[in-house]
């Protein structure tokens, strides 16, 4: 006998992982944090036309309540240390989107003495969005990609002995 037919109609069946992932990916709060010109496009993406709010995304003024860090702009070595600190202040689970060429690889400024060529030298990155700067459509695409990644995560599976060894 199917479970679906045995319960009243208002009851919805799902898997715990799916439910958790769906709630988490649908309320992805990002840190209000911009480094250079990409931040202007980030603001546009949060604005009414691209409208990040429709994915349940809202900017947060502190890393303590943020799930997502969008690194938008040229990362100088001076800022790299501070970016790392901000990342460490975010609660787990946390995600990083590297937005634009500068944050991906140093971009136009990669040979400059003061520039860190790539934010992945400092913190782990989940999604890279190319562009200089990426248009709001591109960033939205990257964020949807991140949501897809989040919806495939498994939380209730105990890691195998090998995985546990890797994690520790």
């Amino acid at each position: 006998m199917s479970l679906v037919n045995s319960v009243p109609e208002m009851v919805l069946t799902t898997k715990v992982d799916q439910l958790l992932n769906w709630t988490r990916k649908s309320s992805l709060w990002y840190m209000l944090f911009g480094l250079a010109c990409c931040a202007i496009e980030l603001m546009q993406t949060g604005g009414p036309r691209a409208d990040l709010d429709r994915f349940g995304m809202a900017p947060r003024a502190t890393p303590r309540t943020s799930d997502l860090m969008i690194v938008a702009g040229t990362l100088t070595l001076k800022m790299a240390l501070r970016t790392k600190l901000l990342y460490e202040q975010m609660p787990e689970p946390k995600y990083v989107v590297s937005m634009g060429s500068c944050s991906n690889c140093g971009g136009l400024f990669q040979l400059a003495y003061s520039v860190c060529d790539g934010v992945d030298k400092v913190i782990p990155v989940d999604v890279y969005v190319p562009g200089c700067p990426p248009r709001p459509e591109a960033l939205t695409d990257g964020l949807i990609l991140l949501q897809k990644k989040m919806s495939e995560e498994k939380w209730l599976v105990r890691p195998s002995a090998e995985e546990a060894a890797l994690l520790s």
Partner: protein
Amino acid sequence: MAGAAECGGGSVALVELSRVERDMEIAAIRRLLHDKLGAAVGVVEEGPHYESIRIDDDAVERAAMLLRDTPELRFDCLSNLSGCDYPGRGAIDIVYDLYSYEFDRSLVLRVSTRRGDPLVDSVERVWPAANWLEREVFDLLGVRFRGHSDLRRILLPEDWVGHPLRKDYVEPEQYHGISTVRESMLGIRSGS
């Protein structure tokens, strides 16, 4: 009405004055400085885009004061202050770009200082805008400014080693564990 007429009269006088003063040649400005400061004022140098007056490094503040306060000059605005390294002749040049709002005129001063121990008078007390500009030159070229109120790095982190706009600057291999060795797509390798 009387007030308006007075205002009108004043502005006519100002226009006449500025027409005379705008034609003031750089040589005349140099002569004026030379009369007051003597040998500290050097020659007028021809550049590709502008002429400049060379000043000794310990007479900068006095020259700046004169240029700002002389009624015929009134260089009341320091548009820019920058530095340039010339290892070939062992000097660092500081370039002052001045502007007079009253006479709509620009002037460039050049000051040479020894590369081994670069020390120049600060002009912060003449133009407060010099505070940050001198800090920038200190940060990137290592020139110290005598009499500056707060001479510390302004752009780079406080723990940075060296002054990157010097021609012989060697970039460290890493900064706080972040590798600074860069590989570009053109095959240019920097940072070592």
